[in-house]
């Protein structure tokens, strides 16, 4: 059986996996809890791209994958596949979320006020190297404002609609159980609006940023102005079998509306929302959404183009699949190449044969 022994097969893949896992060592509940506490923004990004809101599972996925984000997303998505869909929650209304941060670049001040909330935007990006020397870094405590910001904020677009600056699009009311679900139906184009927004919500942050940035630099037609950027906690309102609607907990959400004045008489709006607090993805995603209508086929701001290419599990999986053996395909192409070469070198003989 010398024929078989030449390839590693099952033992090799088993040992290769052990080598990788040895990089992380033992994983226990404490490590998972520390990851969850120390890396909330990474957990948020992971939950958004996994479309699974479960901070503890996200921390576990990061622990298992050693921080390889795409592996962690796949762990979460594969787990999601096994979970039953028990119910569709009540719709989340913008004005009803518990808002931590909400800013607008379009106006100096807006109804409800500019609420900075938690951000590193104005911080100086300096490493606290003292920590490595043994001096723990303790951030200064937050000093509450004399007058607390309101917990709920109206949507700025509502004000703009009242001003006639934004078209009030009339939408048919849809029963929440009939909202198309991207995870249970294929994405086809032209895409259903629900599918587009769901795709963006679970899209790869880096991928959305790259394509969104290309649009911002000029490969899109519309320059975005951040109309409203909002970080909130939304109540997950579900219906008890007896009929009462109750909150089963809160989920962090982010959303961005960007606008452009390029249009016929009204502001054009682009929108993106996702699980977790991830401002960059929402601004870039909303920019893509803003540029999508009427975009040329196969341009980076064409919806089919950016939605297909920012799907993190598909993109990363296909990229790493090139590590798989391809020698049959290669052999087949090589055969063509050799035959074509032989033919080019001996055209006279070929013609004589024919």
């Amino acid at each position: 059986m010398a024929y078989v022994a030449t390839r590693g097969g099952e033992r090799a893949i088993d040992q290769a996996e052990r080598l990788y896992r040895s990089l992380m060592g033992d994983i226990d509940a404490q490590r998972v809890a520390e990851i969850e506490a120390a890396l909330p923004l990474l957990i948020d990004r992971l939950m958004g791209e996994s479309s699974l809101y479960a901070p503890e599972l996200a921390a576990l996925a990061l622990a298992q994958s050693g921080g390889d984000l795409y592996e962690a997303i796949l762990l979460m998505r594969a787990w999601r596949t096994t979970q039953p869909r028990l119910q569709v929650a009540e719709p989340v209304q913008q004005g009803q979320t518990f808002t931590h941060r909400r800013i607008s670049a379009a106006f100096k001040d807006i109804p409800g006020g500019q609420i900075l909330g938690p951000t590193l935007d104005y911080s100086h990006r300096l490493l606290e190297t003292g920590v490595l020397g043994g001096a723990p870094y303790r951030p200064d405590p937050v000093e509450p404002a004399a007058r607390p910001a309101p917990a709920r904020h109206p949507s700025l677009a509502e004000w703009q609609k009242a001003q006639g600056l934004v078209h009030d699009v009339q939408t048919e009311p849809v029963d929440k159980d009939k909202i198309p679900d991207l995870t249970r139906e294929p994405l086809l184009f032209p895409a259903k609006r629900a599918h587009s927004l769901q795709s963006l919500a679970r899209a790869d942050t880096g991928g959305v940023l790259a394509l969104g940035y290309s649009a911002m630099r000029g490969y899109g037609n519309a320059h975005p102005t951040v109309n409203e950027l909002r970080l909130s906690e939304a109540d997950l309102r579900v219906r008890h079998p007896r009929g009462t609607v109750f909150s089963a907990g809160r989920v962090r959400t982010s959303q961005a509306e960007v606008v452009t004045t390029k249009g016929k008489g009204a502001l054009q709006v682009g929108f993106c929302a996702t699980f977790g607090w991830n401002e960059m993805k929402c601004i870039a995603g909303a920019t893509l959404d803003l540029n999508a209508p009427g975009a040329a086929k196969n341009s980076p701001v064409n919806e089919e183009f950016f939605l297909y290419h920012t799907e993190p599990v598909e993109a990363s999986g296909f990229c790493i699949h090139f590590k798989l053996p391809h020698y049959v395909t290669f052999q087949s192409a090589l055969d063509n190449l050799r035959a074509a070469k032989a033919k080019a070198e001996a055209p006279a003989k070929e013609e004589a044969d024919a």
Partner: protein
Amino acid sequence: MSLTGLTRPWKDFSYGFLDASAKRELRRKMLKAVAVPGCQMPYASREVPIARGWGTGGLQVTCTLLNPGHTVKVIDQGADDSVNAASIRRFLTRVSGARSTWDTLEASLIQSRHRVPEEILREDQILILQVPNPEPLRPVEPNMSVARQMHADADYGRMWLQLYEQIVRSGRVMFGAAYPSLVHGRYVMTPSPIPRWDVPKLNMARHLTILSAGREKRLYAVPPYTRVEPLVFDDVPYKVEEHGHLTCYRSGLKGFFMNEIPQEDGGALHEVSDSHLGIKAIRQGDGEDVATGDTWYTNGEMGQ
């Protein structure tokens, strides 16, 4: 009466990993695919515990078809012991309790990446091909919604043009693996990146072939006894790889698709790509009683 009496014991995963709703969707799409041979059926394509592009489409089909009575064979590039084939086989047996085999004759389900086994498949066997790119029109039309429209219109002019251009530029058709083929006289499909050697095996085959692309969320089928015709001009015949005269340096088998193994002396050796066919030949040589089925090719020539 207690709550536990009314429910089943909690399990990590459903039987065969996928839940009932996912399997139902796949069954429906497979039936549609059989009803319209070669036509790509979009499906939701759930995430499974292996990476996209690593056989998730084939895996979802196999997981749906599997039951404990099945015997499953998994090959990658023709080999059962290839690392990813080993990984998929381990997953399938783990979630289903089905038996696994390396022998094509014993298998009821064969999940394969890039090869059709050399032994003729029977009516009671199903071949599941993993597909990286289900769209034969991709080289001429990368936009999927436009390509879908072209299929609907049977608008394959640009495929023929591509074929013609290859002949003009290179003196021959340069499609390697994944040779575009017309199914049942209507839809052009990519047979997945199987070598040209394997495409004639699908024509009027006794077995059912299901082709599934998990990442691209499309599946399609070649039902038994269905025409599969590689796109060729009348005066430029279809050519399979010139492997008919090669001999496997390990098993001594001749006239099958081979892997080329470069040697340090500048030459190359060849080994039979269908690895278990080679193993059986070696064991027969050692005097063991091992059955080999009839093969599609005899002495390097495709049978009629």
